């Protein structure tokens, strides 16, 4: 049973402890997944610095993001001069292969024409060997960090992809997941003997080994050539249901303009067949993903994954009594919430509250059918914040919260465990290495959730049981 709640704006106008971040953050991460790319945020100095700080606290890695450092003059007369200086200084300092520019509320509102600015810059520096320069439109008043991420992936492809000779390769658009997830996806592709290009690939660039000397640009990332060749692939696989569709919500300008994902763009423009499936979390969603890979590769699921799947089912069985009937609150980006919800439904856990700061309007219809064996009604709230979550959670008697670290204060108040997943995790170690995807990631999540519930039982028991 699904219990919808009305849009929160009826009660509160302000957002109180947002359950989302702004789109330039997602854009910056996407750009970091392209090899030798330096992002520039076209706006005030603070945007870049805040976003760097936020990302560094999660990934614990250098995260250089430049700014065009708007001054008052730029805000009034336009930021072209500042952006030109920024591009030149980035080229001088970093010698990047590509510069990824994303806009902000400030530069969008004053109507900066980035196509014009970039082609002007290229014309003025025609004699130099310039890096690629791409841009994405990511005003922070539109969508969330997840939208900014996917919009930037789309912009990268739209800005670079060129149809030439077909290549024996698929494009994999993995979504806003952890570096460990990306590494695992690459392993899966290799095990299927699939030639692939993962766009973006920040599995290394935000999780580098220790260095002997400082690297201005960390290793790793999708080569620019592969983004260009994405038009020549025979198929794309895109993980998610929502992507950047939140950009549609609340639109006034460009209302009629359709929001496309990277995969949709390549399909409509270059006939690259697009396979969309949700984040592979849980058995059924992962099966769907593997089905696509079997079809594309012509190979059956490698034995290794048959075994991982089998062990996961074994764990579901071993742990079913720990899980059944427990009430969970989940929150985060829309696609993550959908994935978690589908997975938890397989374990017997009832998701009593699913919250996201996203506003695509897609999450409710998708989740409407997902809590099949639920004993409890499920409340779904989109465009909500943490205080909305806390207000509703008070009366739910939930046993566990699953989401990023920002919900900790509510879990603390409710005296229930929080299993940290997704982004950001600012109060625990190893966020880069959390697996969420595929049978392996699901196994990790399952173990962590089961252990959190067992630990809670043990800690709150009058008897210090040695077996549980």
């Amino acid at each position: 049973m699904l219990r919808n709640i009305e849009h929160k704006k009826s009660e509160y106008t302000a957002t109180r402890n947002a359950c989302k971040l702004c789109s330039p953050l997602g854009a910056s991460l996407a750009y970091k997944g392209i090899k030798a790319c330096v992002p520039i945020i076209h706006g005030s100095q603070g945007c870049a610095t805040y976003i760097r700080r936020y990302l560094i606290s999660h990934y614990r890695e250098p995260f250089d993001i430049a700014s065009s450092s708007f001054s008052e003059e730029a805000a009034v007369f336009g930021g072209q001069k500042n952006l030109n200086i920024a591009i030149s200084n980035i080229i001088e300092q970093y010698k990047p292969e590509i510069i990824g520019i994303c806009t902000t509320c400030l530069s969008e509102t004053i109507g900066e024409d980035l196509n014009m600015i970039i082609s002007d810059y290229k014309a003025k520096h025609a004699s130099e060997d310039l890096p690629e320069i791409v841009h994405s439109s990511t005003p922070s008043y539109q969508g969330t960090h997840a939208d900014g991420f996917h919009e930037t992936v789309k912009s990268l492809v739209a800005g670079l992809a060129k149809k030439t000779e077909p290549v024996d390769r698929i494009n994999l658009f993995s979504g806003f997941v952890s570096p460990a997830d990306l590494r695992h996806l690459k392993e899966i592709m290799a095990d299927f003997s699939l030639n692939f290009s993962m766009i973006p690939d920040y599995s290394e660039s935000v999780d580098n080994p220790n260095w002997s000397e400082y690297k201005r640009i960390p290793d790793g990332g999708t080569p620019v050539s592969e983004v260009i060749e994405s038009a020549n692939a025979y198929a794309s696989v895109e993980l998610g249901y929502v992507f950047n569709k939140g950009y549609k919500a609340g639109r006034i300008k460009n209302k009629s303009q359709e929001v496309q994902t990277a995969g949709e763009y390549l399909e409509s423009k270059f006939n690259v067949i697009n396979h969309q499936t949700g984040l592979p979390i849980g058995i059924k969603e992962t099966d769907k993903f593997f089905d696509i890979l079997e079809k594309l590769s012509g190979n059956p699921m490698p034995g290794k994954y048959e075994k991982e799947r089998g062990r996961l089912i074994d764990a579901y069985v071993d742990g079913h009594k720990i899980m059944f009937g427990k009430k969970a609150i989940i929150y985060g980006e829309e696609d993550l919430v959908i994935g978690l919800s589908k997975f938890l439904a397989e374990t017997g856990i009832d998701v009593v509250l699913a919250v996201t700061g996203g506003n695509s309007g897609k999450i409710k219809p998708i989740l409407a059918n997902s809590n099949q064996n639920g004993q409890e009604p499920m409340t779904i709230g989109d465009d909500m914040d943490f205080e909305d979550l806390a207000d509703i959670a008070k009366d739910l008697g939930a046993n566990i919260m699953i989401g990023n670290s920002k919900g900790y204060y509510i879990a603390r108040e409710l005296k229930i465990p929080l299993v940290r997943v997704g982004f950001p995790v600012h109060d625990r170690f190893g966020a880069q290495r959390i697996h969420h995807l595929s049978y392996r990631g699901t196994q990790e999540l399952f173990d962590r959730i089961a252990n959190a519930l067992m630990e809670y039982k043990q800690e709150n028991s009058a008897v210090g049981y040695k077996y549980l």
Partner: protein
Amino acid sequence: MGSILTDRKNQVLTKKLGASTDIDCAKESLAGSVSQRACVFCGSRVVLYPVTDALHLIHGPVGCAAYTWDIRGSLSSDRELHRNSFTTDLREKHIVFGGEQQLYQSMVELIDKLKPEAAFVYSTCIVGLIGDDVEAICKKVEKEKGIPVLPVQSEGFQGSKKDGYKIACDALAKLVGTRNNKEVSKKSINILGDFNLAGELWMLKEYYEKIGVEINATITGDGRVNDICNAHKASLNVVQCSGSMMHLAKTMKEKYDIPFMKVSYFGIEDMSDALYEVANFFKDEEMLRKSTELVKDEISLLLPALEEYRKGLEGKKAAIYVGGAFKAISLVKALRLLGIETVIVGSQTGNKEDYKLLADLCNEGTIILDDSNPNELSDFVNQTGADLFIGGVKERPIAFKIGIGFCDHNHERKEALAGYEGMINFAKEVYASVNSPVWEFTSRKKQK
């Protein structure tokens, strides 16, 4: 020094005997330099953040509020309103049609629900552009709700972080002197520029109370609106983190003739001076005697403990890059006490006077930096062979990635580093950072 962008050359200096110590500073960050600085809004937000019983409402799209949610480790002895992140979360429709209604509604609802003692309303980049009359709305709400509602016009592009400090001080100055509902003794001070990170302010309060000084308002660490409104009743403003709070001290001097002094609470020397100077100000023999006693007691406990750490640190080299230059000065001295020489020192917001002091204090060859970036910092660490980096979250990965120790001396830390107790914590942390066995495995050390 190949890594320095041409337009930044004069913001970097190597100390040489007899050479000029003039450095270019207090200017806007160079586009594309990857400055470690934030913006005007950030400056205002961090200064006002610790006022615990005020509503802090950020008028703008979601990011500015989200990235500053619970950003400082500032503790409160009472309410914790400041630890929330409230924003008008502007959407496209507000950009097109204006955000005034959204702001008014948000404020009224939050004030009704949370009953704050005052409200600070921060304008972000976009607010000036869409033409919202924030001041008028603040006035209206102030009248309706009967609490001070202060606009903080901190559009990010209107200068640098330092300009944000000034805007925050102006907002505070509007509160000062508006109430007379508190008994304040003649021997009382306001503490300006301590933000009660990890409860540091409470330690300082204890020291001051021990020598017979009463604390009137603490601005802004563990700050209360009512105390700030009564701040004009203190006899002296004691200002730490002078970059952020000097403007308020000067305003209060002009308006209420309250003298001020600059102090620092980091390191034994500076901490002790902070007590002596206050005692001297009051020209109180008893106070001075108590200060001497306190310092003697603390140091007799501290020095032997520090000596142990010093043995393991002697001869090491440090790089310092922090927000304010005044803190950097204290850090150079505190590190010296531990036998560590500073080879790089810089700040985001220092002024000429600060940098001159630093240059005078540091050894020959020390590199002094204004508004630096990761490339310069990593190059200089490499060049000088520093063993330890002291900075904030954004500098941490620079140090760790190349395999040297790091200590967080920024506003996010959860360890007290001020006062005598703080000095021991600092020594412990520096010792642990430099002497951890993990450096055996990092390639930089392996090559040696």
